[in-house]
């Protein structure tokens, strides 16, 4: 999916001031730089666990505690994580404490192995062994990426944009699979398996195939594998590559990113601030985890989906429109810094304006066009109405139609298909079918309207877009005026009215400041690439 496809017809609809656009980007970079610095200076338990996962450590103990958790905890308990988990672990392996990672983890859990921080010449063999293991691991991700490229080459991409994105959310991977396959057959280009409530706050990744999620299914390596295999089958049946999405979000963001790379997921929800604002996860933890996970995504050829839509579920979509733009600019900066390319930036935004607001649809068009023109080469992810969806499913079906129309008129890249039951239940099989019918009608009957849609340069839409961009620049300036920039503004409620101080929130105890000799071959390999 190349940017040109989405933008050819909508590229010059708004007369945006190029100077203002440049200024907005420069400000985002200025805001983001200290955060990157912060992220470089820390590691987290999840980054270290992700490293072990990349090195091939899988499985869990009898209570379901993953071996990566047991091993990292053991190392942390004995020698700390300031130098990273790899040095002590491969040192132990080199020393012959166990023949492989899995055995080592088991012994460590049993307390039958001692770790140390190898120094001087002792360190070199450990370092080399770790590097080899991780080269292998990263190699597996590279292989999966090539595999995807080959499949896309063979089966082909959807013929048109926006790509059609549908969710399944039964909580049971074995109900999810047939529903996902049915959705793909009816026209979905992308399937997202929604995650069980609460998983984002688990500081470990559950194991195995699962059937007991609430309003979503646990993200596990086995569930990833099962669903990807099923969709590969369906892709062949349909002669088009059906993509799979999950969440690299929450306390285990880096690990899930690694699993996504290993199981050839194609897109991942991954936002720079969602966990902070909506899950009260510690800001530092989030930024560190986020940078590593994005490096993995960059390497794996995964498209990220950012979460700007979420702002508009709690804040007003008109008043807070500029916070979406601001977040998009920041997400873009962080993503590019982590090595992601434009085509991997599924920047989020949403159709969430109160439908009772006069001209709501045209306001949506203004916002959507603004995003389109600010990020001409990114496959924007356009999210449907949720907040103003009620139990009136007929009205819901209507709102979704206008959402679809806005998607077509403004050249969005990824269309998350809205469900008429949004205000009621997680999607039913029939909801998806009806929703796809809605998309098809709007696209085929009215999609060509892009030819006729020419907002005047001094008209309502152009003026609104200009206003939002202006407010976004002001917001970035306001953030810069804080002593500690972004961290302070997150603390004082600038975003979504939520106050999240840098020393508060969940998972702070999993953050570790790196010592001078910190080593992480995975990070080095990914950084080199970035």
């Amino acid at each position: 999916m190349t940017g040109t496809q989405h933008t050819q017809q909508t590229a010059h609809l708004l007369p945006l001031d190029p100077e203002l656009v440049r200024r907005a980007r420069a400000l985002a970079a200025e805001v983001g730089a200290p955060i990157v610095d912060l992220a470089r200076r820390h590691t987290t338990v999840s980054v270290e666990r992700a490293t072990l996962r990349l090195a091939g450590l899988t499985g869990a103990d009898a209570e379901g505690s993953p071996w990566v958790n047991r091993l990292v905890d053991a190392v942390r308990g004995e020698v700390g994580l300031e130098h990273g988990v790899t040095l002590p672990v491969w040192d132990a392996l080199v020393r012959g404490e166990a023949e492989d990672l899995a055995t080592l983890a088991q012994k460590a859990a049993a307390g039958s192995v001692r770790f140390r921080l190898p120094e001087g010449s002792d360190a070199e063999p450990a370092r080399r062994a770790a590097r080899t293991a991780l080269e292998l691991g990263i190699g597996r991700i590279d292989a999966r990426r090539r595999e995807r490229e080959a499949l896309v080459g063979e089966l082909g991409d959807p013929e048109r944009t926006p790509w059609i994105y549908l969710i399944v959310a039964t909580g049971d991977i074995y109900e999810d699979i047939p529903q996902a396959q049915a959705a793909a057959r009816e026209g979905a280009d992308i399937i997202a398996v929604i995650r069980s409530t609460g998983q984002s706050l688990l500081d470990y990744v559950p194991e195995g195939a699962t059937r007991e999620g609430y309003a979503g299914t646990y993200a596990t390596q086995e569930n990833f594998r099962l669903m990807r295999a099923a969709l590969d089958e369906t892709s062949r049946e349909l002669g088009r590559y059906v993509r799979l999405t999950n969440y690299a979000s929450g306390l285990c963001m880096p690990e899930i990113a690694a699993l996504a790379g290993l199981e050839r997921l194609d897109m991942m929800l991954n936002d720079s601030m969602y966990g902070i604002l909506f899950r009260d996860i510690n800001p530092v933890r989030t930024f560190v985890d986020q940078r590593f996970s994005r490096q993995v995504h960059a390497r794996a050829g995964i498209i990220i989906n950012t979460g700007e839509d979420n702002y508009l579920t709690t804040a007003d979509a008109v008043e807070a429109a500029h916070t979406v733009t601001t977040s998009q600019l920041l997400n873009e900066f962080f993503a590019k810094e982590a090595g992601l390319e434009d085509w991997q930036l599924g920047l989020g935004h949403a159709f969430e304006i109160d439908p009772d607001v006069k001209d709501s649809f045209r306001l949506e068009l203004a916002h959507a066009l603004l995003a389109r023109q600010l990020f001409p080469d990114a496959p924007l992810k356009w999210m449907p109405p949720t907040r103003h969806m009620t139990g009136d499913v007929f009205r819901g079906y209507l709102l979704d139609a206008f959402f679809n129309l806005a998607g077509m008129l403004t050249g969005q890249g990824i269309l998350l298909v809205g469900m008429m039951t949004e205000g009621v239940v997680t999607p039913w099989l029939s909801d998806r079918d009806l929703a796809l019918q809605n998309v098809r009608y709007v696209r085929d009957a009215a999609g060509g309207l892009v030819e006729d849609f020419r907002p005047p340069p001094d008209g309502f839409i152009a003026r609104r877009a200009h206003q939002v961009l202006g407010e976004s620049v002001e917001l970035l300036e306001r953030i810069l005026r804080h002593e500690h920039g972004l961290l302070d503004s997150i603390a004082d409620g600038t975003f979504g009215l939520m106050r999240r101080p840098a020393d508060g929130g969940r998972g702070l105890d999993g953050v570790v400041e790196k010592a001078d000799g910190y080593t992480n071959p995975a990070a080095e390999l990914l950084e080199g690439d970035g």
Partner: protein
Amino acid sequence: MSALMRPYGDTTGDGMVQLSFTLPMPHGKKAEGAAQQLARKMGIEPAMVVHAKPIGPSFTFFVVYGSVSHLVDLDEVKVVEREYPLLSPKETNLAIRTLLRRRMVVVGACIGTDAHTVGIDAILNIKGFAGEKGLEYYREIKVVNLGAQVSVPDLLAAARAEQADAVLVSQVVTQREAHLRNTRELATAFRQEWAEGEGPVLVVGGPRFDEAMAGELGVDRVFAKGTTPADVASYLVHALAARRGVDPTAPAPAAEELQEEPA
């Protein structure tokens, strides 16, 4: 596929359905309770009244979601499955020649005040329906289409005059069960004219008929939505043959004639 099943929302056996209706009472908690009660009486438990909107001062509209407790028992589903072989126009023509040794005469109409002719035309006119040609296209069928708003006496007169083998009647308007009433009136007049098993085959059709109601309505066959001309032609051959106690698809005496068929 088991014989017992429940509706499917997003999990096997969850029984989930969506329901909407209006109650003639003002909006309020009482009305929501009433909606809940109705849903419960229909077997929806638990029922979520997810939308309640006043329509003026004395009506309230509801949307309800919930799980219905009834089981569908497939073994008890009675369906009018096609009781005759589906023939191509060629085969139909051949069968008619074998059976009648003359053209089959079909008289069609919309009776009562119903003026919806598109359905009967779809069956009778050459243009046809769903890619199939209508009965006019069949060399061995003579079609007399009387059009709309034909009275029952006029229809019977035409059937007599044309010596019709079959009478085809369409009914589209269903308000206050107009279609059922008109059909019953027709069937009564028909039976006064011809004894059971005599006279033309009597067929009614329309989008809201239940095909299982033929007996109850006093007609030979009912066709519902989605009917195609070949369904009807094949049925007529079958019915006329049955009356004569023969098998319409037995080898024809003049099979070589098949060559010159247009169909």
